[in-house]
């Protein structure tokens, strides 16, 4: 109890009476690494020669991304009818993919904002990459609604820009709310990410300058804005960062709430439910953490970042996945319960049809991936097995895609009148477009890990024991 001994004088009196146990603090940077080790490790990724695997992955990702380009080019040239939409399912993969990608983005904001407010210091190792993931996921998400408007060159009609028709948007529509929610989300995510990058860009600027690479020193220097590590600056910077975290928290919750309003505000059985906002937010965080694990575990292995992304970090991410996955499972059960309890025959039919109708295969894929998969994370042996965690995270991604598919397509395919019932299957153009977005995402993510620091160096240094000005008593520290 080094801390108690040193600070006995200024500790509240009650502490001496109750004599609290010294709880061990998790070590966030293993092997007692120095500040310069962190700088070398993170900058080394950028400064080193481009690895062969990076080129292989990059070319492969570009190839996959070309499917989106092909799909969209064909759509724009021909018309939105090339997608498999037909009455009664006029909204399918486009909105499924949109919600899927937006949801993935949410874990990035959760890690950077909510965990920052909750002072969960383990976020520091993963927040930069998770925020990058958010931005790239929003880019992928944006493709679908923008091209679903059909004549994409009129997509600017979504925004209240004065035009020659002098008509304005219908602000009563949740779809218009979505425009503002998603564009705000994208913008604020980029701003938050950039603010976090400024001190690290200054590090790179100085390193490239010292190495004689003036071009890169100039480029990093431009964006570092002359950051010089001044504590007078840090003081305002920290405050700004805290406020950004504070506003991103209600933002991330509101974005998926508004996305769920797209459905909940309609009158369709299976959509018209009040559980949607919390259920969508939990699902978004669940899928996002799945994607964070999918991305970070290979990154950790390839770059040898085991001292920075420790087993403790993986444990934390698995536990968040478990918690949110269980909330999602609860929501599935609660939907069924309310459908029965409300005695509304249409609502009841919608849910029985989901589980046992023509789309039962999708429903049971969803249940097994989203409800059963995360339950493995109860076991420490599973969490310690990195390869297994990675495989389970893939199942989470798959399951959450199917969740959106089940919600959207099953409700639409069985309309109020049996005469208008239908069965939706995607067209090849839709499959191409969606498949390609994984390439778009990977291209952006690969460029990110090649040219920008994958971890926030300044924040990592601040959580090491030697950053503590009261004598590095890290383990028993009470701050």
């Amino acid at each position, binding site marked *: 109890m080094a801390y108690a001994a040193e600070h006995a004088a200024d500790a509240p009196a009650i502490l001496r009476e109750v004599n609290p146990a010294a709880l061990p603090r998790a070590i966030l940077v293993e092997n007692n690494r120095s500040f310069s080790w962190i700088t070398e490790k993170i900058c080394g990724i950028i400064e080193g020669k481009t690895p062969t695997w990076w080129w292989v992955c990059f070319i492969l990702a570009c190839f996959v991304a070309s499917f989106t380009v092909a799909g969209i080019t064909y759509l724009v040239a021909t018309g939105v009818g090339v997608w498999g939409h037909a009455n009664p399912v006029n909204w399918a993969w486009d909105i499924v993919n949109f919600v899927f990608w937006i949801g993935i983005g949410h874990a990035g904001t959760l890690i950077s904002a909510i965990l920052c407010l909750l002072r969960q210091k383990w976020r520091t190792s993963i927040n930069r990459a998770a925020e990058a993931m958010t931005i790239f996921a929003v880019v992928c998400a944006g493709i679908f609604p923008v091209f679903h408007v059909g004549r994409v060159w009129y997509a600017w009609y979504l925004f209240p820009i004065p035009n020659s028709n002098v008509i*304005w948007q219908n602000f009563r529509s949740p779809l218009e709310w979505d425009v503002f929610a998603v564009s705000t989300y994208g913008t604020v995510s980029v701003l938050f990410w950039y603010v976090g990058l400024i001190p690290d860009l200054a590090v790179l600027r100085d390193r490239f300058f010292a190495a004689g690479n003036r071009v890169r020193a100039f480029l990093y220097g431009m964006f570092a804005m002359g950051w010089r590590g001044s504590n007078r600056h840090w003081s305002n910077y920290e405050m700004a960062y805290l406020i950004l975290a504070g506003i991103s928290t209600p933002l991330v919750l509101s974005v998926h709430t508004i996305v769920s309003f797209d459905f909940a505000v309609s009158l369709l059985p299976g959509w018209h439910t009040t559980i949607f906002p919390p259920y969508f937010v939990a699902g978004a965080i669940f899928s996002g953490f799945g994607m964070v694990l999918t991305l970070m575990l290979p990154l950790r292995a390839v770059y040898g970042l085991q001292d920075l992304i420790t087993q403790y970090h993986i444990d934390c991410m698995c536990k968040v996945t478990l918690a949110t996955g269980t909330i999602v499972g609860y929501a599935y059960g609660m939907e069924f319960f309310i459908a029965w309890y409300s005695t509304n025959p249409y609502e009841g039919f919608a849910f029985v049809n989901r589980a046992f109708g023509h789309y039962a295969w999708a429903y049971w894929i969803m249940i097994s991936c989203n409800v059963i998969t995360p339950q493995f994370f109860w076991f420490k042996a599973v969490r310690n097995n990195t390869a297994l965690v990675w495989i389970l995270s893939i199942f989470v991604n798959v399951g959450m895609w199917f969740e959106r598919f089940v919600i959207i397509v099953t409700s639409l395919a069985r309309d109020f009148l049996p005469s208008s019932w239908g069965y939706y299957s995607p067209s090849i153009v839709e499959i191409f477009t969606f498949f390609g977005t994984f390439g778009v995402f990977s291209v952006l993510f690969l460029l990110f890990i090649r040219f920008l620091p994958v971890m926030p160096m300044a924040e990592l240094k601040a959580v090491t024991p030697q950053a503590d000005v009261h004598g590095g008593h890290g383990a028993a520290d009470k701050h």
Partner: protein
Amino acid sequence: MAAQPYGLIATFETAPELYHAAERVRDAGYRNWDCITPFPVHGLDKAMGLKRSIVPRISLAGGIAGFITGMSMIWWTGGIDYQLIVGGKPLFSPMFAFPVSYELTILFTAFATIIGMLVVNGLPMHYHPVLKYDHIRRGMDDTFFIVIEACDPRFNLANTKTFLEKAGGKAIAELEA
């Protein structure tokens, strides 16, 4: 040597050394001085005697502006400029205007916070005497510096140098203006 240096810079190897030296500089009554650190050192604001940042006030102003923008935009476009009845609903209600206004509140707050932070810090500033110091690169990496500016009323080249030495500063150097 330049006629009038920008100030003196002293090196500190560890965060606690810097922290205690900062307390001494503060207590000696210096005003125009700064600490250069690779990361935000917890508690250093207090050791430097810095006041609470004014960035939150700018953020609040941005947030209020965003909310008013959202509400008034929806009220004016739908309720005044082009009145169109949709679904028999009122032309304007704060209820349906809320989600968009809420998002704009956040958007404007974010811009106000970041622009406010940059303006208060005087960034972007691509030239600064501190950045010309030979070892400043380590200030972004693992070393800590204290800079006392020559424009400080208490600054005296010899005395301030001795003072920084006593405070534990190493490799004290003059910064070119």
